[in-house]
């Protein structure tokens, strides 16, 4: 395996594949009998992987229901309450997510699923949307604070939101979707034309990604250097797709392995760190009120 990071003693986040396998074996501390037992069990149910591996494949399916995804073993990630920075999440409403990963040498993709009794895809007053995010250190060989990075430790975050998925699938959602009976006699655009009416939509004019009307991806590329610093990247390269199944979400987030400046650049054979956050909009989750997971190793298959 290629392992340039293995030779870098001051890069503890970039753990080599071999050291992982050693660790996994050590943790199991098993004798031959047990090893045989595991071998038998594999016939009926695959053992959960010990860490997240992005397996090499040909084509990465964007559809989260595709068998290219569901055939892979799930890697369970226990989630924690965000209670480091105010405001805190009041209750752990998503205790666990399951993750799978694939890459094809050009793109890497993460398949994340979690239980959720209700689909929350409307962004409106006192209504919040379901979401999930993947966090990678911008420098895959370096340590970054899990607190959405820190000064000189930037992180690359890719966030998928259910509201953005609805925008992509159905066209930009708005007040008519949140409140179907809303009456508006004469919006400015009907009176003065689109261009002049823009003055009534300052967030649109300011280029705020929340107000984007031409969204083609339900995933945003963001950069952060600590809590509260999240900033949308000027160059959007992430994509994805989320599907609500009736009792939970399955979401695919894809990004180029080499996505350009200031974003995480990955290559086959390395191991880096990955962290997650998940929001249940129906429980009032938004922003800092979220579930998060600490860094875990992410191995990218050669």
């Amino acid at each position, binding site marked *: 395996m290629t392992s340039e990071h293995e030779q870098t003693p001051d890069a503890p986040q970039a753990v080599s594949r071999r050291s992982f396998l050693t660790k996994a074996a050590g943790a199991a501390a098993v004798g031959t009998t047990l090893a045989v037992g595991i071998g038998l069990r594999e016939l009926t149910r695959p053992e959960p992987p010990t860490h997240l591996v992005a397996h090499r494949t040909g084509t990465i399916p964007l559809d989260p229901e595709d068998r290219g995804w569901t055939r892979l073993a799930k890697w369970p990630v226990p989630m924690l309450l965000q209670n480091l920075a*105010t*405001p*805190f999440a009041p209750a752990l409403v998503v205790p666990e997510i399951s993750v799978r990963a694939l890459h094809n040498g050009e793109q890497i993709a993460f398949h994340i699923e979690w239980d959720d009794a209700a689909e929350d895809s409307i962004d409106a007053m006192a209504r*919040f949307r379901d979401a999930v995010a993947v966090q990678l250190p911008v420098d895959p060989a370096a340590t970054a604070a899990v607190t959405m990075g820190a000064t000189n430790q930037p992180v690359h975050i890719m966030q998928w939101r259910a509201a953005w998925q609805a925008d992509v699938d159905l066209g930009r959602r708005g007040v008519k979707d949140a409140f179907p009976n809303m009456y508006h006699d004469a919006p400015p655009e009907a009176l003065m034309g689109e261009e002049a009416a823009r003055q009534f939509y*300052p*967030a*649109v004019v300011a280029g*705020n990604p*929340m107000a984007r009307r031409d969204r083609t991806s339900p995933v945003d590329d963001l950069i952060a250097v600590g809590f509260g610093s999240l900033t949308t990247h000027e160059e959007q390269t992430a994509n994805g797709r989320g599907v609500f199944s009736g009792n939970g979400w399955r979401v695919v987030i894809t990004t180029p392995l080499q996505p350009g400046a200031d974003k995480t650049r990955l290559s086959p054979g390395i191991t880096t760190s990955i962290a997650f956050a998940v929001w249940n909009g129906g429980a009032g989750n938004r922003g800092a009120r979220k579930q998060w997971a600490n860094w875990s190793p992410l191995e990218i298959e050669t």
Partner: protein
Amino acid sequence: MADVFNWQLGRDMQYPYQAERPARQIAWIFDTNKCIACQTCTVACKSTWTSGTGQEYMLWNNVETKPFGFFPTGWDVELLNLLGPAKWEGGVSTGNTVFESAPAGERVNGWLPTSEHWAHPNIGEDEPSGPVERGTYIDKLPHDTWFSYLARICNHCTYPACLAACPRQAIYKRPEDGIVLVDQERCRGYQECVAACPYKKVMFNNESRVSEKCIACFPKIEQGIQPQCVTSCIGRIRIASFISAPETVNPQSPIDFLVKVRKVALPLYPQAGTEPNVYYIPPMHAPREYLRQMFGPNVDEAVETYQQIAADDELLGLMMLFGSTERIMHSFAVKDGIATGYDEDGTELVSVPLREPTFIREYFDEVHNTYRQNIT
């Protein structure tokens, strides 16, 4: 948390950021005694700033009827429930502010209104405090049965709860004039500010998916002109100008004169601790107990001073200057029955007489053999 001085509480209080007062602070006086709830201010604001899709129920300016009107529904009832009864000892607030009473894990003690709360902008309009029996007449102050109007905008607080609550510092207070703004580029629509504002004057745009609020008509203020809600007020109940820092009193400043010299204008629910910069002359016909709940312990003095206005040329003169000029009046003077307002350079903006000449006609019109409805 930092210790900051809140002069309306008469004490230091806890706030998430260090005190940094602006070079000057925009402030308003609203005379509730003159408001007729015509909503001209509301319409002026709405047609100027919030006509867009997603802003249907967004009223940066509203006029509500007390005691049963509120927008959003119950905003003040909820605030009082959260904070408990106000406690004052010798002019000092001994209760906890929205910052000091914040539960663990929260920055501000707040609550988030639902769409239902925002759905009734003029609920309770003109509803009196109790039933009015046939034959009732009113011959004393305060009135036994009453209602009064409360015009409301963003208070552009010295210690904004919205700003304190935003986890990504997308709300800022302008150092040049103290206007509080939501950065329309940076807001990600978490609505923490909506939940935090004790006055519920930050609102969520359902179309843009970001929060928006009163901008104090800053393009006008930057040109020395008062905001739309002030210049459109046909009852001339409003004035907007600058208030001096707490340790300074400028008796020529219209705001300082009313707030710090005559002390007829009071902050709304000062116990919340945000040091709001809209000051109200309380309605003198409303029960004092209710007014103390709304405006704090100095209500009696304020109402009694206001009731002596006919014998107070300076106070009368300044009140006559309300609504007499579109420009921001930085100072005023009263001399020989004339009140004069001046701009920042000391140039005269307007002069008005303290008393308009009046002619009183007889009640009975002998020519037409009828009683007159209007005799002045």
